């Protein structure tokens, strides 16, 4: 019983680590030329020198931009507890100007123990923000604006960006604007008046190198020897882990997985899955866990969809594919049925399905999104007249038919032969 509890505790620890980005990115931030050090230097110097600054953090989704920023901010809040206040906005939530100003005021109010009025107008809020900037500047307090999904703020009139950056042009204010975006051309989206006020400092976040990756894996997966988890178990666990990490097969799995996307978060999802598969009985991570995780996480949804289809639905798909081969530029259910009938006639297929059954099978295909309507016009047309198209390539269809259990041979013939 005690053993099982230990294993469960270890599993919980691993899982909570994987769900906690700031833990994951900690080891990557030691070296002096890491993004962490650079970012920290930039922000802390603008705090100490009481100047304005703006930075863009760019990198693919899941490369840890926000996590590193959070680490930096946490450290800085400890270092200069009274000199910083942080305002966080996200482009997903606050891309609307009105909303953004409201949120800024709300967070400013919460930060400075002021009463926030929900009824305040757009103008009130923007005035309030500028006044606060000035006041904070006079009090030598730096306001750090974090704009997540920065590119979404660059839609529309960019009023928020403009008023933020414009307010920072004055000597009295003291603020740092940090834009975070996964669009590398995020600064090109800015209007001229905004761009000219923006300091073109950019920090690029790249996927970890192989060595870093190895270090990261070890950091995440090894258990602490000096915690509530029993010492012997942790030591044994770590030894097994080391063995596995050195294993060529394991490295291969990781490389295969990272081929599609090399960001850290992508890795985390894989590790999460593998760790979840850990046997509670044995209590150790095994290569098997990672193998199953790999096969379960790398999915081929379209193939799965084809495998789920019934034979009749496959017939319809093949008919549609044949119509496409015939270069019929647009077709609908009726023409598919015509093709189906002609196939039935020429190959003497005995099974007969009524029109309504085929229509339902067709609707199933639509539901599965293996096919879709070519346009949204003609909403009031009935289904059978609206032009459709295949959403899978003929190669995928071929592949799907091959992997289908007990697929009728006639379908392969129909796929290959042009009648």
């Amino acid at each position, binding site marked *: 019983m005690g053993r099982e509890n230990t294993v469960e505790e270890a*599993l919980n620890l691993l899982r909570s680590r*994987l769900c906690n980005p700031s833990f994951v990115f900690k080891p990557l931030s030691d070296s002096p030329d890491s993004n962490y050090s650079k970012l920290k230097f930039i922000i802390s110097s603008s705090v100490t020198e009481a100047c304005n600054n703006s930075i863009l953090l760019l990198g693919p989704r899941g490369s840890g931009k*926000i996590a590193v920023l959070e680490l930096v901010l946490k450290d800085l809040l400890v270092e200069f507890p009274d000199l910083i206040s942080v305002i966080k906005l*996200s482009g997903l939530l606050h891309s609307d100007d009105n909303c953004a100003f409201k949120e800024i005021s709300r967070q400013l109010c919460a930060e400075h123990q002021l009463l926030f009025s929900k009824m305040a107008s757009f103008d009130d809020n923007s005035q309030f923000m500028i006044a606060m900037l000035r006041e904070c500047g006079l009090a030598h307090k730096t306001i750090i604006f974090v704009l997540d999904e920065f590119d979404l703020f660059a839609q529309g009139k960019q009023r928020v960006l403009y008023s933020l950056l414009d307010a920072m042009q004055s000597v009295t204010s003291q603020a740092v604007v940090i834009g975070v975006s996964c669009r590398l051309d995020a600064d090109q989206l800015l209007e001229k008046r905004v761009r000219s006020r923006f300091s073109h400092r950019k920090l690029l976040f790249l996927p970890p190198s192989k060595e870093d990756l190895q270090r990261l894996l070890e950091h995440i997966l090894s258990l602490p020897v000096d915690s509530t988890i029993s010492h012997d178990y942790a030591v044994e666990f770590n030894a097994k882990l080391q063995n596995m990490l050195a294993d060529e097969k394991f490295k291969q799995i990781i490389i295969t997985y990272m081929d599609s996307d090399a960001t850290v978060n992508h890795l985390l999802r894989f590790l999460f*899955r593998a760790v979840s598969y850990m046997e509670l009985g044995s209590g150790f991570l095994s290569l098997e866990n990672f193998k199953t995780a790999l096969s379960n996480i790398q*999915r081929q949804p379209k193939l*799965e969809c084809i495998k789920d289809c019934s034979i009749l639905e496959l017939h319809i798909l093949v008919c549609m594919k044949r119509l496409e081969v015939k270069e019929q530029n647009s077709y609908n259910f009726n023409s598919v049925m015509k093709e189906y009938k002609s196939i039935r006639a020429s190959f003497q297929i005995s099974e007969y399905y009524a029109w*309504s059954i085929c229509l339902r099978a067709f609707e199933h295909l639509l539901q599965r999104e293996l096919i879709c309507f070519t346009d949204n016009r003609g909403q*009031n*047309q009935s289904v059978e007249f609206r032009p459709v198209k295949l959403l899978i390539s003929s190669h995928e269809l071929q592949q799907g038919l091959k992997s289908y259990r007990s697929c009728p041979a006639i379908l392969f013939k129909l796929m290959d032969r042009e009648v």
Partner: protein
Amino acid sequence: MVSFISFHRKGGSILLLCTCLHQTKAHWRESFIFPAFSFTNCVLLYNQVLVATITNHQSPSNLFSEFGFCCFSVHFFSDIRVCGSALISSNQGLLNWVLLVFGPFSHQKTTICPDFLNPKPWLNHLWRKSENIGHRRNSMGKEESPQVTRRTTRSSSSATVGTKTCDSHPLTIKDLVFGEDPISLNDLLSSFPGRRIQILELVRLLGASNSPMLPLFIYGGASSGKTSIVLQMFRHLNRPFVYSSCHTCYSPRILFESVLNQLLLHRKDAANGYSSAKRCERPSDFVNFLREALSNVINNFKGNSGKLGTKKLVGQADGNMVYLIFDNLELVREWDKSSTILPFLFNLYDILKMPEVGLIFVSNTSPDTYYSNMGYMEPIPVHFPDYTEDDLRQILMKNQANRKLYSSFLDVVLRSFCRITRRVDELSTAFLPLFQKYCEPLHDLGVVPNEEMKRRLFSHLQPQIAPSLNEVFKVSSQSSPAAESNKETKKKSSRRKLGVCAEIDELDFHMSTSAKYLLISAFLASRNPATLDASLFDSMGGIDSRKRKRKSSQKSLEKKENAEQEILMKGPGTFPLERLLAIFQCLTSVAEGSIDEEEHGDEGSGVQGGDGGLMSDVLLQLSSLCNANFIVKGGSCPLEGSTRYRSTVCEDMALKVARSLKFPLSKYLYRR
């Protein structure tokens, strides 16, 4: 406002009777019956009705006092989902619903239906929950859903009156769990045959109590057990969760408010005017409220577990994780074209940054159908494949009284039906009447069939299989066994072979004669080219058209083919109102002779008068036909400026209507 909707079956075709009563009460719409049942239409109608009921009307008390109840009755397994959504929508606190279920369900008289051969297990749970609403809040978010009575016979339908919600206790934090005794993992596995791998994987991914989780994305085809398994999983785990389906929460605001209501333990009732706990339209507000609500709930759980230590109360939730389940996520894609909601939901985990929150998305379609320009961190995919034939056998075998007999029945039918569909809901509806047929020669249903008997039963059933294959998606009635014996050879009648369809002549369309004529004339106007109107309806032109038909050179054949192709692609043509009315006049003037003979001086004789009073009547009929989706209003023609109409009625149906009028429709149809 819709006060009564029911799906009737009469003589085998499915009739949808819909009486729409407007809020003004001044304007009654005709009752319609839809002889040719189109599922899509029906769902559309249903949705419209739902939206109408929920949005149009602000003061529920008015509605209650006027009508007392709203009634839905359903035949289809697939409709049950819609119906279920109607039921959940009633959480929006607007209506009192009474659910009437008859048809195939009438064989399962139990209130607690067996898990699988049943509409939707979760729906069933939902009913059960709402029945004892007085004791517990139910976990699917119909806090105030009224007492739901289920009737299994049609006869009682008229007598049903919605009963008022009984007063319920204030919600507590315990109500966030499933609310029934937790089941063991083994029970869970055995109640879902063929889903072992998926269930075990989900258990693994959800992890032990208090262990954080990355967002999950569960996907798989319709009726592969996604929702039920997830919900039963939480029953097994006994952890707090919030379930909201995007089917019923059809707009961001309703979705947000439904989540918040459940988290804030808010119940909509007459006292608060059926309003939500928070008014929240934007994602930004939602995040603020959600964070607040979640941290409240989590602190509550933490406090509880701290106080109680190891002691566990009954109904107490395990751990302090809270799970948010978003069902039917695929519908969100259509919500807004700018599509900020979808990336928002997918990024919700990163935005909240609360490790105590688990997100679970349930979707019909695979993750690759969600790609957008935006991009997001993909959740962890879990696939529910469709059932294999063996799984289906196990599922269908569940809860059968005589398993041996049913198994031999499945030997006969399952293989061929699986070629059409592997959806449990469709199969079980199709098998129900077929099994009855299979059992017909038997006196004792408890008998264990031997080889010889199997052969006998098989030969009895065999002629039924092929036609019933084409019946898979229709609900058949138990009645009218007489009809089955006659027409068995004609291909045309294959739909009727199961003895489902009674004679069409007997079919009462519940439509006035003039509406029928209008329907036919719309059909003709859509099918026939306008240039031929003169020759078809003018006695002088008839010969002319016949003459044209004769010549068939190479070129004209080609032309014919092209035209055929075109009609396949374009569907029925459009026509202006004037043309419809002209044809209508012609038809009724032809028909009035026969009507006079039969001394049926109803609508037809009105035509004779041909005055303005009739016209307004006809226009009213037209508008009601439009509302019933028999005729659709298209965009206006840019040259003429008048609205153009299009008939959606299929030929079979038009012929049926014509036959009921004894009108020679085929004479007027132009064949290319």
